[in-house]
């Protein structure tokens, strides 16, 4: 079984500390290509979560049967089979999304996170842990992707949840910014994706650095709450 501690550490790793998109910088292609709006982003991450969880279970339970020399091909085989299943499922029931997500569903196979987690975690840990790891890594991806998608959509066209009708028929997008907002198209194009992800990474670094600075400051002098160090971290010039 799994202890509370282990659960927390797996969850923390997946959601924040080892966040695939912001820290490990793996699985970037779908992250950037599909995050043009929030709906696409969320749907692709759901598919990825599904694959990751299943792949981790499969590998973790079969790990003792797989000879070392061909473990990579076998892992890939497993992942690829699962991905194709998910691909078929999307094609059957979310056809419009399937068309939009395009080759990025099959590309979950090479999505480095899946393999990396399979190799780094599932191949060494029991099935339950691995499933959880897969799920939390996936949720970590989900929120990053959703946030990125939301940002890009908002800056790029001033709406949120465009295309929701493909998932929930009848629902419609929310116009957040005024209708005559000109739309900073760059955000939706690849350059915007890179730059905004860069900013998200920096945002996470900033939070972490601020937390670390607080941590360091606390034992020394607990009475320095309004410390400006974090917000304007100067470049390490000296």
């Amino acid at each position: 079984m799994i202890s509370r501690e282990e659960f927390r550490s797996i969850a923390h790793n997946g959601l924040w500390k080892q966040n695939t998109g912001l820290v490990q910088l793996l699985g970037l292609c779908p992250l950037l290509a599909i995050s043009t709006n929030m709906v696409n982003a969320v749907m692709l991450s759901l598919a990825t979560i599904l694959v990751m969880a299943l792949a981790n279970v499969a590998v973790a339970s079969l790990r003792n049967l797989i000879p070392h020399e061909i473990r990579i091909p076998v892992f890939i085989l497993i992942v690829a089979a699962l991905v194709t299943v998910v691909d078929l499922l999307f094609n059957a029931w979310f056809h419009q999304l399937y068309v939009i997500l395009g080759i990025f569903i099959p590309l979950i196979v090479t999505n480095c996170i899946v393999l990396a987690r399979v190799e780094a975690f599932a191949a060494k840990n029991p099935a339950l842990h691995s499933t959880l790891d897969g799920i939390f890594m996936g949720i970590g991806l989900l929120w990053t992707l959703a946030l990125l998608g939301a940002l890009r959509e908002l800056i790029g066209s001033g709406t949120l949840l465009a295309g929701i009708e493909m998932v929930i028929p009848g629902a419609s997008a929310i116009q957040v910014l005024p209708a005559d907002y000109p739309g900073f198209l760059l955000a939706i194009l690849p350059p915007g994706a890179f730059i905004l992800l860069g900013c998200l990474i920096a945002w996470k670094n900033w939070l972490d650095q601020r937390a670390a600075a607080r941590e360091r400051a606390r034992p020394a002098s607990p009475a320095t709450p309004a410390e400006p160090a974090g917000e304007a971290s100067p470049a390490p010039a000296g």
Partner: protein
Amino acid sequence: MAHYLFLLIGAVLVNNVVLVKILGLCPFMGVSKKLETAYGMGAATTFVLTLATGASFIIDHYLLIPFGLEYLRTLSFIVTIAAIVQLTEMVIAKTSPMLQQVLGIYLPLITTNCAVLGVPLINISHSYGFMESLLFGAGSAIGFSLVLVLFAGIRERVDGAEVPLPFKGAAIAMVTAGLMSLAFMGFAGLDRY
């Protein structure tokens, strides 16, 4: 002939795999810290990607389509690619320790480079013929190597800049990639005539 030329230009510059198609980003971010490693990764990827496009074309046209098994594409392509990568790695390790030194740690990473699977899939969706597929594969690989090397050059320089602390490292690299991608948009339209 002009058709092939424009196909190549398109694959290398206009529809660059990394900056426009957004494929193969993990190695793009991962092995671009130094120029030498970028050269190595570029060479290795070019080799494997070209081979992979050829192999997947053959598999698709002579195994999958005749039997109506198109849904097995992903599975068969990726397993083939993984095997090619692993074989290449072993052969290089044995035959050329020099090359192994240079490429060693990057070769296994290629399997998880989505460009290597993505390019064959794009080939199929564009219904390219064998020559076209091969050319598109090679072009994409060259495009990948090109931007990887250029990116590494810039990253080495930016490494010395006084980048604000939260942006140090991956974040500024992302921003740089974004501006590169912006610059590459300038090629838009150059593959038409």
